[in-house]
């Protein structure tokens, strides 16, 4: 951190701090130019680009199939949902159907992704608050089990490269499904234990309630999506609104917050994990047998007709969208990722103004960003 005297500042106690890019709470290489009056934040400007590799340009130079492994590296904690968002966009663009079994497998791996993402996010949030180690290790213990399942299914723990337009790459075995069912059955117990430690905790409540409030109208106007939007009381979950995949077949509820503060954003994650467990139970019970790839789908040398498509899914971070334009050639003319992590940061300054500098860390943690997706 460097301290710079602000020229022309009337009060002596106005101080400008460059927080990051190596600050441990920024979850990657992210920087905030913060102006402080004592400990109070009076201005905050996020600075991006440290992880920029022009993902979109790389994908425009590659074939439709070759872009899939690159999508793994966007939000590198949730490669499965990234794959799905991209596959859905190509399916819309080229009119590819997906077999039923593949749709169920997609739902199962995506809800598992949501479990491990939200567990990790809560762990990191508590770590940022000063609860060193314990909650994070509890969360990571569960996350490891999910990653083990991903490894046995796709061969990789994090960079799964698993979905294809028209289906998924490999089928899951009956053993894998029963292992998943075991994890799902035990996960509620972990959540109970986790909540017993955290939700009623006095320090957690003091640090989060009334902190970083995001009003409902601002959340909508600033395009905030995902748990952050629902914590402000807006009922907008793409699994219910768009009903992509086979989500209309499952019974689950959309948790909503009331105050839009950090505590509500924390509770959204916990409640969403419980709803994900319900979806997983139903999907594991109902999964049909059958093919996992559309036999007519062409993976190599796909040349969609001239046109464009925008597809979006409810990723654990928010609305993950892919916008593709085809000019009839084997690689996309335009490939665009709508990154929920970046757009959710639009309101970071609004949430931090008037708060203490120590709360900035907690507010940033409650947005849940991954720099691989912010900078692309």
């Amino acid at each position, binding site marked *: 951190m460097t301290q710079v005297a602000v020229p022309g500042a009337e009060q002596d106690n106005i101080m400008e701090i460059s927080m990051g890019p190596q600050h441990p709470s920024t979850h990657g290489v992210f920087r905030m130019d913060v102006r402080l009056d004592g400990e109070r934040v009076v201005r905050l400007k996020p600075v991006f680009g440290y992880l920029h590799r022009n993902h979109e340009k790389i994908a425009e130079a590659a074939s439709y199939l070759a872009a899939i492994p690159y999508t793994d590296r966007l939000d590198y904690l949730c490669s499965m949902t990234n794959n799905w968002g991209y596959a859905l966009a190509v399916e*819309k663009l080229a*009119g590819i159907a997906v077999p039923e079994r593949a749709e169920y497998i997609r739902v199962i791996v995506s809800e598992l992704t949501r479990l491990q993402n939200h567990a990790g996010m809560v762990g990191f949030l508590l770590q940022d608050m000063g609860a060193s180690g314990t909650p994070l290790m509890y969360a990571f213990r569960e996350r490891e089990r999910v990653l083990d399942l991903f490894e046995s299914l796709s061969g990789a723990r994090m960079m799964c490269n698993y979905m294809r337009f028209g289906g998924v790459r490999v089928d899951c075995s009956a053993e894998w499904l029963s292992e998943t069912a075991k994890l799902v059955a035990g996960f509620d117990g972990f959540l109970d234990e986790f909540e017993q430690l955290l939700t009623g905790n006095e320090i957690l409540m003091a640090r989060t309630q009334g902190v970083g409030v995001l009003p409902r109208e601002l959340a909508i106007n600033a*395009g905030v999506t995902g748990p952050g939007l629902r914590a402000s009381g807006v009922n907008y979950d793409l699994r219910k609104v768009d009903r992509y995949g086979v989500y209309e077949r499952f019974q689950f509820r959309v948790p909503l917050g009331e105050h839009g503060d950090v505590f509500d954003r924390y509770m959204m994650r916990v409640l969403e994990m419980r709803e994900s467990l319900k979806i997983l139970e139903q999907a594991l019970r109902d999964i049909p047998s059958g093919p996992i790839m559309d036999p007519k789908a062409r993976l190599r040398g796909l040349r969609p007709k001239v046109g464009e498509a925008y597809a979006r899914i409810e990723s654990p971070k928010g609305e993950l969208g892919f916008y593709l334009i085809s000019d009839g050639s084997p690689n996309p003319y335009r490939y665009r990722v709508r990154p929920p992590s970046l757009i959710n940061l639009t309101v970071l300054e609004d949430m931090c103004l008037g708060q203490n500098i120590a709360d900035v860390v907690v507010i940033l943690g409650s947005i849940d960003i991954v720099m691989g997706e912010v900078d692309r």
Partner: protein
Amino acid sequence: MMLEEIRNRLQADIPGCQVELVVNGSPSAQNSLLIDRQHGLAAARLLREGLQMDFCSNVTAVDWPDREQTNKVKTKQIVDGVEKEIEQTIKTTVPGYLEVVYHLFSMTNKDGPVVIRLRTPNRTEDVAVPSLTPVWRSAEFQEREAFDLYGIVFDGHPDLRRILMWEGFTDHPMRKDYVPPPDDDLEILREG
């Protein structure tokens, strides 16, 4: 709400607003509305306030460079006193432009997308479109990104700076004619 209805509403309520329906040939069938840039901001206000498009999800740019079009034209000419049909190839240059695409949804009515497009007259001198950030805050960072990577100037944007590339960078890497510097040039940049 159908796109034709939205087009008629925009043309009726905003005097002089020109809206063209752009048909999308892919199976997604997501057609879009091309709005002239002078009335872009007024159209956005009407879409948000009159038509409940309260959520601007995705903002992005597309580069369409100048392209050569070859047309084969058959003309009748009299050669040596005999009328003959001669095929001629005429090459014309279609001027390029930069395009900004907005994907709008309604959280109130849970519908969408309504896709709107704004175009610049060319790719070099006049690259400005109105910023829609005053209408939808979600466009703030995304328009900065389009400015950074495509060089589109958004008139009325509150904080138009580069967002992903560094401050001293001069080019726009997402343009189709961008040539990356050779590796040794990066060394020179680093030394300043």
